[in-house]
């Protein structure tokens, strides 16, 4: 088990890997981890996510496999959730879409995260993850400063970056309002605070 990540996250990743294997065994593309849990991995657990967001067009297959892996549909008083939760782990899983960033994310850049039990989870690339946070930031008139902070930290902690692709993706996700130069300026400014 990784000593750097909280055990509940690692355990949940193993179960999602098991469900992903079931989807792949049917000849489908592996579901992809996106969102807060991907940020948690990329920041070494600095951001703690309550659930694992998954993108897959094979939602029914994945969710059936998820139930076999031990998750149950999340049910609460007076509220509806599309997600699943684990009876013993304080962690959920939710399919949030059928395509990566509504078709704009790159499946070619998705990476396979190999866990210590040999199973693996597909994870969104760091460039798309940063671009996603920039899109969340770009909500005028009240810009989401927490999302910008996350984008800056992801950028600072990224150990492999395709800057050309990252710039293109930030521009795409913010409809041209922001680019990599803006993010770099912010990240370096904070760095020198």
């Amino acid at each position, binding site marked *: 088990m990784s000593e750097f*990540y909280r055990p509940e996250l690692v355990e949940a990743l193993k179960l999602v890997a098991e469900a992903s294997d079931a989807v792949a065994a049917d000849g489908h593309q592996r579901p992809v981890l996106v969102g807060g849990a991907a940020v948690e991995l990329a920041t*070494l657990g600095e951001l703690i996510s309550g659930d694992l967001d998954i993108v897959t067009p094979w939602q029914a297959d994945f969710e059936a496999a998820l139930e076999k892996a031990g998750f149950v549909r999340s049910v609460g008083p007076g509220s509806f959730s599309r997600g699943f939760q684990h009876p013993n782990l304080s962690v959920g899983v939710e399919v949030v879409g059928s395509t990566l960033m509504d078709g704009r994310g790159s499946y070619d850049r998705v990476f396979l*995260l190999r866990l210590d039990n040999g199973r693996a989870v597909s994870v969104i690339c760091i460039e798309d993850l940063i671009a996603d946070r920039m899109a969340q930031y770009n909500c005028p008139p009240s810009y*989401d400063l927490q999302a910008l902070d996350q984008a800056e930290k992801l950028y600072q902690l990224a150990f492999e970056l395709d800057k050309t692709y990252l710039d293109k993706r930030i521009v795409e996700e913010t409809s041209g309002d922001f680019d990599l130069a803006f993010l770099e300026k912010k990240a370096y400014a904070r760095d020198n605070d």
Partner: protein
Amino acid sequence: MREITIEELAVRVSQKKAEMGYSGGGFVQPNSGRRRTESKRALLRNIAAAAAERGEEPPFKANY
């Protein structure tokens, strides 16, 4: 497809963290929760309620 082990990922990010001068925790701001869907809010509420039933605190801090 590119592949990395979870241990390798942790080591590489840990090195970058040290390079950037970050030590300890709390240097990444949590989600504002402004864009959270109703489904997500319900899921987090349900997870927190289940944790409370087990006498545990949920590990995440979220506005739901």
